[in-house]
């Protein structure tokens, strides 16, 4: 019973803050709202008996990535901006596309989502996740690392070109 209460409370928190990310004019408030939403999502993982994933969710997304986002937003010192929509057609297509995606997602989830837990003990501790990652999912894992490496090389190239020009 108490699990339901916790679930619905944090589900509401996650949705409300996610909406705030999209709707709020101020980018700093948006970033902080996204942190709150991530934290509520981590509570969902705890409810699913995956505290390892919950901790990783907070460390990686709320703790590292969003701090970087905030750093960039604050460094650019964005003021409140209110731009008039200049391209009405594109704006309409954007709304229509995201609405279609949302409806499709709800439809798919209500039709195909698994409502019952699979039988047997559910283990998602560090050891199990690590072994699965390095045995069954080694290929996607390596692909992701190559993608990240490419991003790092790209960032180095972008930041390195400017210093060459200066010297």
């Amino acid at each position, binding site marked *: 019973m108490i699990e339901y209460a916790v679930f619905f409370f944090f589900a509401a928190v996650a949705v409300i803050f996610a909406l705030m990310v999209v709707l709020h004019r101020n980018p*700093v408030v948006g970033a902080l709202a996204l942190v709150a939403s991530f*934290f509520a999502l981590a509570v969902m993982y705890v409810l699913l008996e995956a*505290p390892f994933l919950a901790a990783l969710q*907070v*460390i990686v997304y709320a703790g*590292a990535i969003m*701090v970087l986002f905030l750093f960039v937003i*604050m460094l650019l010192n964005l003021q409140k901006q209110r731009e008039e929509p200049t391209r009405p057609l594109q704006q309409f297509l954007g709304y229509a596309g995201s609405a279609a995606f949302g409806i499709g997602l709800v439809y798919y989830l209500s039709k195909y989502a698994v409502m019952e837990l699979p039988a047997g003990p559910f283990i998602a501790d*560090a050891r199990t996740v690590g072994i699965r990652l390095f045995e069954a999912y080694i290929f996607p894992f390596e692909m992701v690392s190559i993608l990240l490496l490419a991003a790092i090389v790209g960032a180095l190239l972008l930041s390195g070109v400017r210093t060459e020009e200066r010297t």
Partner: protein
Amino acid sequence: MDRTDVALEALKIAIVLGALLNVTPIMVWVERRGSAMIQDRLGPNRVGPFGLFQSLADAAKFFFKEDIVPAGANRWLYTIAPMFGLIPALTTIAVVPWGRPFVLRSGRVFEPIVADVNVGILVIFALASLSVYGIVTAGWSSNNKYSLFGGIRASAQMISYELSLTLAAISALMVAGSLRLTDVVWKQTGYFVLFGTIKLPAWNVLSPAMWLSFIVFTVSAFAETNRLPFDFAEAEAELVAGYHTEYSSMKFALFFMSEYIAMATMSALITTLFLGGWDIPWYNEPPTFVGFLLSAIAFLVKVSFLLFIFVWIRWTIPRLKYDILMRVGWKVFLPLAFVNIVLVAFFIARRWI
């Protein structure tokens, strides 16, 4: 989970929270007297014996100060920011074991830890990584350029040093083979035997593969808690008072508290990971109340010693330059932490530790 369990759990929470909340006044006194000692001054010595009640007087003063919100500030975030800073600092201690478990008369085992979760260390890092938001939010919502600079510096510094902090902790976890902090402590209760005669306690700091990560972890802990020589978020010589320039009254006091509580938590973490936790060297604590009490005192002594080191270093080493901070973090400590992981892995593979 019956009524006794709930009562015991409430008792543990009360002990831990009581200890943590009392850290601030005591540490403020230690800091002021310690700095006076180092600088050949007297320090606060008027209120109570040795000036011990000075902190209480200060706390009372904070309550009576006017609580100012700057006109251009973002009122909501400005109010939330101090709480954002304090809550992670207070909750982190929940997964740190602070004494040897003992058997109660009813046969129940009393584990002196609030929450013995199997991802203990990750919970600590998750909460520690959230603590930066208090500083960043405070810096931004004050609508003051010095505050903003403080917040920006804090976010860059914390990201940089969190990496080496985490990587240094990983080596301790590799040795213990578990993310659970009680396992890390139990692993350190044995002995290293040198030349078949000298018995050294099996604390990680004394292990041949681990002292490097102890150094990396301790220095990164100083940077994570924003203490001198790494307190660039405040840097009173450059940024007035950094992120809390605009804060007054109890809002400022909350920042003050979270700084000292974060220091205490970091000391507890260093103790647990590297200094054997509650282990008393060359003594086998019995699983009784006496053993628990002695081990808890040992834990307290180690944490107090580390807290004193925090004060000692603050008044000995001047603040670095910001570019040096960044260079040292990324080009010295991060590679050292990586090298250390490989070293520990090699030791474990050869079954030397």
